[in-house]
């Protein structure tokens, strides 16, 4: 009789031990999974960050091409103005200059 009861007892302990191992193992598995999740989530957030940076970059590209276009236009206008001023001041003195040249050509120092 005693030995039978003893067997029962030992059986219960063994079962408990097994269950305990199972519990610890599950916790360990969860831990591994959690670390994997860490990697996945980090990657996901990193690529979100990247696409955000890409958008900002594209935006700045558009802005800069716009401003450089207007710079070029401004430069061209300034150049046109300079050239026009040139032509105007030239036509003002042109006759003077031509007369001066002719005078010197015909002024022969002997």
């Amino acid at each position, binding site marked *: 009789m005693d030995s039978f009861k003893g067997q029962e007892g030992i059986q219960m302990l063994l079962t408990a031990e097994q*269950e305990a191992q199972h519990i610890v193992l599950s916790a360990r598995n969860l831990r591994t999974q959690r670390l994997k999740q860490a990697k996945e989530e980090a990657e996901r957030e*990193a690529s979100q960050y990247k696409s955000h940076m890409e958008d900002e970059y594209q935006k*700045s590209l558009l802005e800069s091409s716009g401003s450089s276009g207007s710079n070029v236009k401004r430069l061209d206008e300034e150049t046109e103005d300079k050239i026009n001023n040139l032509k105007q001041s*030239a036509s003002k003195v042109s006759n003077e200059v031509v007369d001066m040249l002719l005078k010197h050509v*015909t002024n022969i120092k002997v």
Partner: protein
Amino acid sequence: MNDSDVSKQIDQMVRFIHQEAEEKANEISVSAEEEFNIEKLQLLEAEKKKIKQEYERKEKQVEIRKKIEYSMQLNASRIKVLQAQDDVVNSMKDAASKELLVLSSNDTLYRNLLKDLIVQSLLRLKEPAVLLRCREDDLHVVEEVLDSAAQEYADKENVYLPEIIVDNNVFLPPAPTSDQNVHDLHCSGGVVLASRDGKIVFENTLDARLDVLFRSKLPEIRKQLFGQVAA
């Protein structure tokens, strides 16, 4: 020990085993969370840093490209302005060139001009014998003033009358006509003298005079025109 004591003890032991297991599982779970956070943060920060650097580099390249483009534009427009300056100045020379033709149309003026040109050429060459070449149309006038020119030279330099041989075969090219290509050879007037052996040549044509004069007056002209304009 009786049965109930034994089973009580066994129950206690079972509970204990379970308790320990739960506690252990808990520990694992808590440290797992900590590790999760640390790992995720580290990975994320490293990646973000890399990405940030990459985009900073890209932006810098864009900046540099912009600067280069702008500098190129600036150069191009500077060249445009310089070219315009050149054009303006040259067109003045062309205008003067055209006016030269008027000179030879006034007979008295041109006659005196030719004489003075010959005298000046003689003074420059200082040769006892010279060759003279002129336009075919001017031949007559040249022959008319030749003697007085030679005399004037001889008086000024206190030398003997020079021998002036007028070339009757080869003439200077004729005056340009309006429909002629401006690059064709032409002569607006004046003379070319040379030493007898042809080694020393003195071009005293109106065109040559204008060329020389224009070159020497160019800085002055440019200053007058573009003094205020930044080069």
